[in-house]
C-alpha cells in the first residue's frame, strides 16, 4: 500500500515542535512562556489531529482517500478532464432538487398537473427549484455527451479502460431514460403527447416492441398506470442504478488513473508524469 499511496501533503503532517516550545521544558528558563493564543492554536490543531486519527484508526480510510484524492495525474491534464466531475455535480444537483420536488408532487392523473403548477406558483422558491431540475436535466445531458466526446477524442477508452467506457455508455442510456420518464411527470399536453410518441417509437421495434410498449404504459393505453410507473422509474429505479454505476465508474478511474492528452505522449515519454 505504501508504494501505491501518495504521501500526506505538508498541511496534514504534524509539524515538528520548535525548540523552546516544548511545554515540558517551559519552566527552566530556556524557552519563552507561550501566549494564550499559541496555546489555543496548538490545542485546536491537536484536537483536529485527534479526531482525524480516531476516525482513521477505526475506518482505515486514510490510504483509500489519499489514493483517490492525492493520486498522480499526467502532465498536461486540463479543464477538459473536469467534464466528468461536472456531470457528477449535475447529477447531484438533480438528486437534491428532485428529492425536494417530491415533497410537493403528486403522481396521480387528477393531481399531477395541479401539484406541478402549485410548486411553480405557490411554493416559496418553488419556481427556482423546479427550474433548476428542468434545466439541470438538459445541462446534465449536454455535459455527459461532452465528457463522452472528450474520452473518445483523447483515446481514453482504450486498454485498459474499455470497461469504464462500457459503464459510461450504460450511464448515458440511463440518463436519457431519466429524461424520458421525467418528461411525463408535469402531465400537461406536451408531456402526454411526447410520451405517447416515445412509447410508440418503442412499439415499432420488431417482435418485442409491442410488449415493451405495454410494459412502459402498464397496459394498452397511456393512463394513470403509466404516470405512476414512470414516477417510480424516475424516482427510485433509474437513480439507484445510476448511483451504483457512478461508484463503479469512479473506482475504475481511481484504480487505472487518467490518460495524458494525446498530444503530450508524442513529446517526451519520460516526463509525462509529475507530482501534484
Amino acid at each position, binding site marked *: 500500500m505504501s508504494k501505491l499511496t501518495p504521501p500526506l501533503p505538508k498541511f496534514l503532517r504534524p509539524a515538528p515542535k520548535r525548540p523552546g516550545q516544548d511545554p515540558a521544558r517551559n519552566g527552566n528558563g530556556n524557552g519563552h512562556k507561550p501566549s494564550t493564543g499559541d496555546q489555543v492554536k496548538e490545542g485546536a490543531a491537536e484536537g483536529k489531529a485527534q479526531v482525524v486519527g480516531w476516525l482513521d484508526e477505526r475506518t482505515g480510510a486514510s490510504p483509500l482517500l489519499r489514493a483517490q484524492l492525492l493520486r498522480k495525474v499526467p502532465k498536461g491534464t486540463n479543464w477538459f478532464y473536469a467534464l466528468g466531475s461536472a456531470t457528477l455535480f449535475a447529477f447531484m444537483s438533480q438528486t437534491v432538487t428532485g428529492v425536494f420536488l417530491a415533497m410537493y408532487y403528486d403522481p396521480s*392523473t387528477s393531481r399531477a398537473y395541479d401539484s406541478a403548477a402549485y410548486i411553480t406558483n405557490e411554493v416559496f422558491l418553488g419556481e427556482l427549484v423546479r427550474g433548476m431540475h428542468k434545466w439541470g436535466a438538459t445541462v446534465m445531458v449536454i455535459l455527459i455527451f461532452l465528457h463522452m466526446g472528450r474520452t473518445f477524442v483523447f483515446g481514453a477508452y482504450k486498454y485498459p479502460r474499455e470497461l469504464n467506457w462500457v459503464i459510461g455508455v450504460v450511464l448515458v442510456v440511463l440518463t436519457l431514460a431519466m429524461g424520458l420518464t421525467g418528461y411525463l411527470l408535469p402531465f400537461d399536453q406536451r408531456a*402526454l403527447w411526447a410520451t405517447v410518441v416515445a412509447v410508440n417509437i418503442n412499439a415499432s421495434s420488431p417482435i418485442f*416492441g409491442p410488449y415493451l410498449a405495454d410494459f412502459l404504459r402498464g397496459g*394498452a*393505453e397511456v393512463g*394513470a398506470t403509466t404516470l405512476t410507473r414512470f414516477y417510480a422509474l424516475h424516482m427510485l429505479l433509474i437513480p439507484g442504478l445510476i448511483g451504483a454505476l457512478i461508484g463503479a465508474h469512479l473506482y475504475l478511474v481511481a484504480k487505472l488513473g487518467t490518460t495524458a492528452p494525446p498530444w503530450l505522449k508524442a513529446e517526451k515519454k519520460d516526463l509525462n508524469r509529475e507530482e501534484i
Partner: protein
Amino acid sequence: MASDSPKQSRRQSRYTAERDMPGAFEGETVTRRGLMTGGAMAVGGIATAAFAIPSLGFAVAPMLKDSTADTWQDVGAEEEFDETAYVPAVMNITAEAGDAGKHTVYVRKRDPKSDKKNADIPYVAISNRCAHLGCPVRYIQASQRFVCPCHGGIYEADGKVAGGPPVRPLDRFYTRVRAGRVEVGDRFSLNAELDRFSPRDPSNHLDGLWQYLYPSRPST
C-alpha cells in the same frame, strides 16, 4: 512433481475418505464445507427469488392482461349521422386518466356503395390516433383527408394511407345501434385492404412480410 505419484492421486480423489479427511464416511464425495456453502447459496437464492419473482411479475403483469374496456359509449342519435360527412365525437378510452384518456372518433353512417368490407358494422367510427406514432389526426372537410400534425401523415376519407410515414390505415371502433342511439365500442386495426385485425400499436405493420414482425398482444 509427477502428477501420477500415489500421494497426488489420493489428494485428487473424488472420495473424501481417500483424501484422508478426518471423520469422512465411506463413499462420501461432498465435503461438509461444500454442503454448507451450497446450502447457504441455495437458501439465499430461494429467499431472493421469493421477493424478486413476485415483484417482477407485478411489474410485467399489465403486458399479459386484457386491458380493453369492453364498454359501449353513446355518441349521438341515429339521425345526427349520414354517409357523407364525419361527425367528431369524444370517447373516454381510459376513464381514470381524465382529459388525457379522452379520444376523438370520426363517425359516419356506413355507405354500402363505397364501404365493401366490414358490412356487419353499421357505422364507420374512425380513431384519430395516427398509425405512425400515435399523434391526434384531424379531418379536413375541404380536402376530405385526415392530416397528422406531427410528421405529416395523410389519410384518405376512408382511413387508407394517402401519404407520409404511417404504415397502415387509421384504426376504427366497433359500432352498434341501441334504441335509436349510436354506440361505439372496442378498437380494431385494419390492413391496407381494410380487413380487420386485433388492435395494434401505432407503427406496427399489418401488410406484407412486415406483419409477421408485429404479433398481436395479449393486452388488447
